[in-house]
């Protein structure tokens, strides 16, 4: 499948969109398909964007890369690693052919998020095709740019409902010179307290995970800083990279449980709440994975009271009505979403219903 992966398909994609607009035929944007499980099923013709791949510009000393949306995430990361750099948001792939575009469209961020930033924090610019088939370019390749609304960040996490991502420019970060992980035996309430206290100090912590009476903490940065922090925090050393990769890719034993997987995004200092089913807590308390058949309304009410929201991340065997995957929005906010959607995609072509029934 890798043969023609370096093509600029802009013209062909615009043509497809214009054609669909003329026929008022909805489109389902598809890269490698690795993120399909995340969204509601949507009907329409498949708009296959997989051929629109390749790195457009990469200047390592600029810490910026621009790549076409269907560039394979693994190719991109290999290229960055060869230059001692990486994506600061440490995105999960969820599949060997995962693309940059899908990652940005779904705003996926991994273990480093609470310390370093989310996908949207690293997006500097984008090129998109809107619902009229026009190519628009927003932002750019510079770190500081306050000209115009920040449409590139709006695209991040819009699940393709506002336009087809063509290219994305991202700010990069250097790979930390040292990175090591320690594991402490500790119960969940005490672990939450520890991570909360650490987060208030300038420690070189780049990830934490609480699971099964254990707290894993990853230190990243200058060798001396990592060594000092390790000495202070203690615990048992484990091999760092494989653990966080398995966590990031949902390959840990925890995720094998057949119950639905909920993602509870809450204020980090939120107290531990036991629900029926195991929890894995990341992001210094702010992201809580729950394997449970607990009622959606109960989880949503709890997450909302904790300053956040609940997403049904993997439905498992659960039959989910389309409106139940993502946390519902207040009606005034939903109305604003619809008005924005109408401006970008006046014919309602793109990924209809992927997020919410009427977007």
């Amino acid at each position, binding site marked *: 499948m890798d043969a023609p992966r370096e093509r600029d398909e802009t013209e062909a994609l615009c043509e497809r969109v214009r054609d669909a607009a003329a026929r008022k035929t909805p489109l389902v944007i598809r890269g490698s398909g690795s993120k399909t499980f995340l969204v509601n099923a949507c009907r329409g013709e498949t708009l296959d964007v997989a051929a629109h791949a390749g790195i457009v510009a990469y*200047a*390592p*000393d*600029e810490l910026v890369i621009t790549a076409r949306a269907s560039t394979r995430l693994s190719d991109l990361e290999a290229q960055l690693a060869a230059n001692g750099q990486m994506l600061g948001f440490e995105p999960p792939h969820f599949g060997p052919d995962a693309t940059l575009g899908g990652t940005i469209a779904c*705003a996926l961020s991994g273990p480093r998020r*609470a310390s370093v930033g*989310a996908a*949207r924090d690293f997006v500097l610019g984008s090129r998109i095709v*809107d619902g009229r088939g026009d190519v*628009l370019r*927003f932002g750019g390749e*510079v*770190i*500081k740019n*306050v*000209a*115009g*609304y*920040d*449409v590139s*960040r*709006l695209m*991040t*996490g*819009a699940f393709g409902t*506002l336009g087809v991502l063509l290219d994305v420019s991202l700010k990069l*970060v*250097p790979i930390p010179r040292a990175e090591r992980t320690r594991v402490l035996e500790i119960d969940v309430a005490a672990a939450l307290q520890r991570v909360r206290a650490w*987060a*208030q100090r*300038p*420690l*070189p912590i780049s990830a934490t995970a609480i699971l099964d009476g254990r707290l894993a903490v990853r230190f990243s*940065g*200058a*060798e*001396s*800083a990592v*060594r*000092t922090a390790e000495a202070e925090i203690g615990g048992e050393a484990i091999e760092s990279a494989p653990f966080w990769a398995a966590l990031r890719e949902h390959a840990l034993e925890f995720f094998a449980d057949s119950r639905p997987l909920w993602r509870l*995004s*809450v*204020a980090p200092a939120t107290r531990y709440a036991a629900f029926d089913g195991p929890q894995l807590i990341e992001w210094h308390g*702010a992201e809580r994975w729950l394997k449970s058949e607990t009622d959606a309304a109960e989880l949503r009410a709890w997450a909302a009271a*904790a*300053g*956040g*929201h609940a997403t049904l991340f993997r439905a498992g065997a659960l039959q989910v009505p389309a409106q139940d995957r*993502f*946390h519902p*929005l207040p009606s*005034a*906010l*939903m109305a*604003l979403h619809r*008005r*924005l959607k*109408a*401006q*970008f995609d006046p014919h309602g072509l793109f990924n209809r219903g992927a997020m919410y029934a009427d977007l």
Partner: protein
Amino acid sequence: MTRVVALHTSPRYAAQAMNEAAKRRLDPAQRADLVRALSRVLPADAILHRDDDVRPYECDGLACYRELPLAVVLPRDADEVAAVLRVCRERNVPVVARGAGTGLSGGALPVAGGIVLGLARLSAVLEVDPANRSARVQPGVTNLAISRAAAPHGLFYAPDPSSQIACTIGGNVAENAGGLHCIKYGLTTHNLLKIEIVTIDGERLTLGADALDAPGYDLLALFTGSEGLLGVIVEITVKLTPKPSRVRVLLAAFASVESAAAAVSDVIAAGIVPAGLEMMDNASIRAVEAYVACGYPVEAEAVLLAEIDGSDAEVAEDSARVEAILRGAGATAIRIADDADERAALWSGRKAAFPALGRMAPDYYCIDGSIPRRRLPDVLRGIAHLSQHYGLPVANVFHAGDGNLHPIILYDTGTPGEQERTERLGTDILALCVEAGGSVTGEHGVGIEKLDAMCVQYATPEIAMFHAIKHAFDPRGLLNPGKAVPTLRRCAEFGRMHVHRGRLPFAHLERY
């Protein structure tokens, strides 16, 4: 530190502004009706409508544009803000939200026939939450006040625009303000969790969350930097950052701008992220040395200031590496400062750059463009060439770490033709930034100043989409109309900050 700003009025702008004003000007009966309606929702002391009372609001930090508002309202809470917006929407009266008015691009310039919605009375720090590393504040709180409130917990609010003692957080969000340390800590947009806004319909919406993300579109990102065109911010939850335990500043001298620029690239390529990384050229060095005697090497063609922060161990390791890199790149001398006073002394030259240059000529223009770092030598050569061509000296101060360039044109309005030459030179410099792959504004915003420059950076479909976004929030175009996004017919001219010996608003504020 007396600097001054002259009224700088481009005839074209003046004519346009007058036409627009004439269209909008309310007759006395309408004005009386508006004030009556406002006084039903606000206490009397919250409404200013006599010319003398509203005059302090006629401009912001870009004093070359002035306009008297119909009225100024000073609500005390979000409900009053909503009530004001409903009154204005019913009467089709434009609304310009304003914090401290320190913005440099005219974003808070009143609109003829409109009101100014001053948010200064919403000035409470509502909550500092160290456990969640956040602070919930009202929009009229100053940037620095947040860090002060967070300090007892060992935390601070990272974005630090030069006006931070006076500028408000509401304005920071509206402008997506930067600062000297964005290379490491990010811009305003990276340091927000949640905002509460009131729409033009008087409806309250929450964008973002106490959690690290929120469901739906990232409207928090869209709203940040939207310059008051989409809604009025009534509450902000910012992210706080742990204070680093140690800070070290290095000052390095270079025999050429090229070698200094190469040193910047080398530092970045080595995987070090300094907290700040600033560059000044020889003209700037000489100006600040003459002004504040900060001990900068006047023979150097360029100096770099690098600030390294973190834990003791980290700072020791990183600063040793930075020092080696700077020497390797050809630094002719390096000074290092650890304690707070010494660091302040090294920074004093950089922070005095604008006023120091202001002493060198009767007038100066400060340009705010951003470029990819690697293009710096080319762009500086281009600027030197243009400077020669127009016969006007240009000094360069540069947020080198994040590619934000502040060329400063020195000139004299008293010399016939020089004003026009300066405008053309500024125009050409911004075009150079865009050609190099950069932006016409790195941190000052578009406001009224850079409306035309926007047309150089963006093509028609993007500008049309910006208007469409505005329409989704504010279909009647009542919120800060005419700012930030140009009408396509205006795409003809660049703008810039103009400083002259008149009265500079906020003359006591630092600007760098």
